[in-house]
């Protein structure tokens, strides 16, 4: 095996690192935690201006999955707010793969320039993991589609330009077959956004759709083909676009505090820290494997499930022991004097629980592994 990045990728990584150094400032981190919007427009625009988003987007530009892995890994390790960027790039890739020429021309440039974000309307109040059972309806009315229903966890809906929306278009077909995906501007009349505040500071949303009217130009990937569009989105997302090394900045913040407070000489702390460094390394290798499989022409769906299960629990372990080791200082929040890791220790303890829930719960991923990797019978 070869674990070295090609000289071209190293150059690409170094460019990302220099952008990160310039744009990912403490002020940006502060802003994400005060506004609840985990996005940095100035960072997105710079990445867009330099052609990096186009270059990294699957199917566009260079479209090298190794580069995409490197880009999100660098952003994540630096603690940059990259959630908006990840979703936007993933949707740009799907539009590029399944969209019409007209959709590509209309939508992709706004994303790869770093200007437009996309929010995702999949889950509903009653349908999370069982997303194929969603009830939001799209009904044909002449040349138009009329959409009615509601969605949950529509994160970034308050700032996004585009919405990708999973709807039911045929009640008679089996649940996976009667779905259609739409992509439409958030400015379309009939959409209401209400904030949902979360434990991890990030503000997500509930969204309502009341007689939202769009034409066929908003159908993405074909009528009643919504599930295929959905799985295409997931295939782009799983494992490569961040979310697998969230413990790295935490360890850095914790270490700084532990050194300054004499805690880092404790053998227990050093052992736990060494163990977490191993976990982070394994998590990045599993991620790199997904990227390598994609770069070799494969679809790393199952490997993405494996990576997510491991990486998320590794991060949660790190969060648990760093906070416990810090004791009372691990309870103090950002800007409080004496807060461990400048408040990140406390923040990560609030943020880490969501990671085993969104983007496919740990249970759904374990089902995948059991059924598809180990060949065990379907258990539900």
């Amino acid at each position, binding site marked *: *095996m*070869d*674990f*070295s*990045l*090609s*000289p071209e*990728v190293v150059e690409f990584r170094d460019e990302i690192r220099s952008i990160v150094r310039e744009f990912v400032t403490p002020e940006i981190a502060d802003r994400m935690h005060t506004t609840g919007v985990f996005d940095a427009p100035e960072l997105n625009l710079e990445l867009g201006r330099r052609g990096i988003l186009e270059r990294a987007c699957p199917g566009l530009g260079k479209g090298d999955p*190794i580069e995409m892995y490197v880009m999100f*890994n660098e952003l994540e*390790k630096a603690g940059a707010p990259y959630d908006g960027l990840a979703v936007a790039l993933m949707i740009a890739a799907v539009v590029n793969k399944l969209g019409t020429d007209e959709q590509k021309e209309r939508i992709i440039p706004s994303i790869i320039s770093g200007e437009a974000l996309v929010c995702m309307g999949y889950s509903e109040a009653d349908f999370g993991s069982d997303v194929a059972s969603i009830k939001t309806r799209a009904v044909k009315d002449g040349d138009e589609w009329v959409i009615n229903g509601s969605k949950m966890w529509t994160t970034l809906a308050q700032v996004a330009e585009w919405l990708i929306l999973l709807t039911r278009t045929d009640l008679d077909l089996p649940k996976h077959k009667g779905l259609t995906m739409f992509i439409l501007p958030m400015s379309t009349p009939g959409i209401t956004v209400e904030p949902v505040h979360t434990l991890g500071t990030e503000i997500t949303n509930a969204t309502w759709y009341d007689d939202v009217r769009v034409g066929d130009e908003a159908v993405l990937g074909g009528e009643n083909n919504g599930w295929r569009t959905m799985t295409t989105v997931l295939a782009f997302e799983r494992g490569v676009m961040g979310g697998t*090394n969230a413990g*790295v900045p935490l*360890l*850095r913040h914790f*270490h700084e505090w532990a050194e300054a407070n004499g805690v*880092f*000489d404790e*053998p227990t702390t*050093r*052992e736990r*820290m*060494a*163990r977490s*460094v*191993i976990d*982070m*390394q*394994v998590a*990045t*290798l*599993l991620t*790199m*494997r997904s*990227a*390598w499989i994609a*770069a*070799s022409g494969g679809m790393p769906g199952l*490997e993405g499930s*494996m990576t997510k*299960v*491991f990486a998320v629990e590794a991060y949660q372990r790190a969060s648990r022991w760093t906070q416990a080791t810090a004791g009372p200082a691990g309870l103090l929040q950002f800007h409080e004097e004496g807060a461990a890791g400048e408040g990140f220790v406390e923040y990560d303890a609030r943020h880490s629980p969501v990671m085993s829930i969104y983007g496919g719960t740990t*249970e759904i*991923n*374990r*089902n995948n*592994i*059991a*059924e598809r*990797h*180990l*060949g*065990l*019978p379907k*258990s*539900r």
Partner: protein
Amino acid sequence: MSVDLGLSPDQESIAELFDGFFSNEAPPAVARAAEPLGFDRDLWNKVIELGAPGMGSAPENGGGGASLGDLVVVAETVGRSIAPVPLVDHLAALSVLTDADLVSGEAIAAVAVRPADGNGLWSLVPTGAVADVVIGVDGDETVVVRSTPPMSGPRNHGSMPIADRSAREGTRTVLGSASLFDTVLDRWKLLTAAALVGIADAAKELGVAYVKEREQFGVPVGSFQAVQHGLADLPVAIDGGRLLTHKAAWALDNVTDGLLDWANNDITDGPALATMALLFAADAAVMATDRSLHYHGGYGFAEEYDIQMYYRRARGWSLILNDPTTVSLSLADRLFGSVEG
């Protein structure tokens, strides 16, 4: 030079050859019959015919010149089969030993993984019960001692041929300073890690096969989600351990002055990666054997079933160097610097 995380065609052939060899010549009954000593001379003679003992040695010394990545593949097959032959220890010792009878495998080499005590005693040396040659540290020197093996040792959890050996009695050669031994120990950690990945992989296979067959309440126990989720963690740990082990092999073979930049998760230092691989693979093997044994129900506890042999070796092979805390702290020193004072 760029990312390639698959086995090379050569390595695929090596894996196939050794897996085939061990499944023909060393099914679990062979490991069982070799207990408690944990050594089968006839099987070792067949390993010699295969050319395996010297495959990592330099061609000019009569060896096969295999890369560390190739040896990792071999060590994993040893773990998968729990074959009662000291190939892992021998290959590690031969990172610096070049004697012709060691390269051929006629003589067996062991690695004294912990330094000798004040009286020159290496305690509980893995393969020490059967090795003709032992390499290790005595005081501030790396020494090689050739002496008659005891061919017995304390009965132990992993049915391993371990024994105390003297660093001073016998034909003793001083190879150099103690730091010379680091290369040997790095390779020992690496190959032991790979063998532990093999143990974990075999335990997973045993467990999955069993829960597909075994029925309770009229259905295979493998159809229960609680059982499935316990097993689903295993391939994740196995793949992670395998990748980490191969990265360590790659770094030891190709990287000088590797990075120890843990704060950015940028680690290419071979010795650190070898220790990381050992710790991680040990956990993977312990977890895999633990769960697989458990999902066998009462039969997992019965001596008649093979999983208990894997269960004991997972612990035996991972603890023979030292307790995991001590190993973790040595890793911490390398990653973060030693504690002052």
